[in-house]
């Protein structure tokens, strides 16, 4: 153990991470080029696809930050072993900040409130917008609020990273500062992501209101992040040092988190649906009418079965949760389901009948490629474990029996 501590090289990510890093960049750049060309030819479709891709990858980024902060508060080997994976994903916040800029160029194409009100045919909507665009849903307000969200996320990511980096050089300070930041950090995250969800997704349909919507997006982000961490740990576990560290108990705990997030996602989604269905008010139920008819209903049913029911039943199995290979397959599937869930949330605003455009696919791959490149770059820049931290002992000690 002391040898591992002395030799920093042993704790770095394996060479495969560099290979994935460069290949991701190539894929990202190629698809980004196609996206940009497509963006000039078909700007409406491009921006819709871009918003979808952006929300999807933002989920992995911010969700990782949250799971990291939960780990700082509760401790536990399950979190220590993926701590640097989560950290590398969290450090994609600056990338996501830059990638937010293109959305600003498509505001009128995405958001009805950013268009001139005179062009509005629906009288009720126009009256409603006259009020709200003056006070809240204005372009300037949108930009200022986004700047606040990004400032908070970047600051949290900056300090968590800085302190984590300091732990690689002994002597290591106590972990209390992580806790002191993580408690308020979780509160800040909950509020910022809620208002971001309202601004960026819910306001596409400005007459629709759901107070739980922020939490629906929030839990989706946590699920995305946990699934992504499981996929990465599956890639790394084939090589040292992760092969020495990742114990079945940790994978089991990751599976429990995944199960929990899936159940909470279903709980929030069902609660929202039942309350709106029972109330049956015209403002609210129209949101579901669009999503349960004309082909979108099939996507909704698919989500019920494959975003909740099937993974839920599978994850009840204890042997499954302890098997990293099978868990990784489910995690990949769930990442796809997260994409589909966001598609089902965003796209029906624009297309009443079921439609997936070229942009929904291409732009997601473009953003994903760039994101993965940045992620593996981050992962390679730091050891996979802060070995001098007392918490690391739980991971470093050999598995018994």
């Amino acid at each position, binding site marked *: 153990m002391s040898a591992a501590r002395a030799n920093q090289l042993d704790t770095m990510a394996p060479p495969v991470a560099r290979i994935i890093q460069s290949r991701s960049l190539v894929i990202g750049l190629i698809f980004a080029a196609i996206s940009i060309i497509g963006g000039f030819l078909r700007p409406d479709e491009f921006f819709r696809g871009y918003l979808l891709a952006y929300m999807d990858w933002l989920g992995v980024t911010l969700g990782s930050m949250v799971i990291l902060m939960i780990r700082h508060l509760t401790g536990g080997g399950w979190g220590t072993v993926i701590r640097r994976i989560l950290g590398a994903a969290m450090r994609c916040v600056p990338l996501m900040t830059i990638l937010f800029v293109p959305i600003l160029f498509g505001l009128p194409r995405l958001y009805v409130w950013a268009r001139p009100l005179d062009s509005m045919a629906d009288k009720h909507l126009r009256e409603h917008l006259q009020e709200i665009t003056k006070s809240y849903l204005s372009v300037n307000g949108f930009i200022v609020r986004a700047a606040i969200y990004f400032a908070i996320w970047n600051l949290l990511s900056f300090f968590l990273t800085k302190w984590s980096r300091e732990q690689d050089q002994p002597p290591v300070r106590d972990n209390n500062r992580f806790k002191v930041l993580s408690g308020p950090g979780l509160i800040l995250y909950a509020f910022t992501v809620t208002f971001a969800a309202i601004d960026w997704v819910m306001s596409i349909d400005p007459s629709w209101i759901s107070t739980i919507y922020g939490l629906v997006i929030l839990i989706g982000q946590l699920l995305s992040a946990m699934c992504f961490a499981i996929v990465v740990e599956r890639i790394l576990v084939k090589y040292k040092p992760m092969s020495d560290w990742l114990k079945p108990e940790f994978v089991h705990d990751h599976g429990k988190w995944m199960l929990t997030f899936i159940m909470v996602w279903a709980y929030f989604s*069902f609660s929202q*649906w*039942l309350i709106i*269905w*029972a109330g*049956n008010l015209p403002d609210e139920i129209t949101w579901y009418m669009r999503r349960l008819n004309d082909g979108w209903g099939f996507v909704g049913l698919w989500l019920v079965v494959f975003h909740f029911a099937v993974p839920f039943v599978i994850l009840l199995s204890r042997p499954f949760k302890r098997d990293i290979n099978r868990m990784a397959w489910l995690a990949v599937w769930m990442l796809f389901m997260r994409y589909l869930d966001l598609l089902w949330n965003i796209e029906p605003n624009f297309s009443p009948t079921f439609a997936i455009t070229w942009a929904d696919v291409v732009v997601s791959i473009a953003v994903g490629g760039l994101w993965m490149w940045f992620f593996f770059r981050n992962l390679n820049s730091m050891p996979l474990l802060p070995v001098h931290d007392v918490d690391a002992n739980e991971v470093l000690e050999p598995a018994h029996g």
Partner: protein
Amino acid sequence: MKRAPIYGTMAEFDSPTALVAAAHRTHEAGYQKVDAYSPFPIEGLAEAVGFHKNRVPLVTLIGGLIGGLSGYLLQYWVSTSSYPVNVGGKPYHSWPAFIIVTFEMTILFAGISAVFGMLALNGLPMPYHPVFNVPRFAFATKDRFFLIVFASDPKYSPAETRRFLESLGGRAISEVPD
């Protein structure tokens, strides 16, 4: 049922570690009808006395399925055919509304099945049991650990088994009258 005058031979141990070790060695020595008693659950003890088939999860699953199915079907039948009422223009078969009761019935039946299934499989309640005839056995619910080899075991012989249990370090060895 054959009524043997002796139910088995019981030995007392000081610690969970000693009990688990003794149970393992008894099993290895070829005894099959063995049981152990402890004041709290000890990991690995059930395997050590040769217990593998735990059917409680199965019973619970079946109970839960019955509960959920009957809950949904009851609501479906009541709301669509036995007593259909128009409420707020909602369809008779209002599946979103039926999920709640279905869920509660699943939990209720699964929980009841888990508890009563566990009790039934354990053969409880059982007001009389021969092991209670051993006076020291009252400490099995406090701080003592017991191992018994049943007389029905093919390898059982009062003298031989007593010697064997003594060799394991068991104390206060006694024949349990039936």
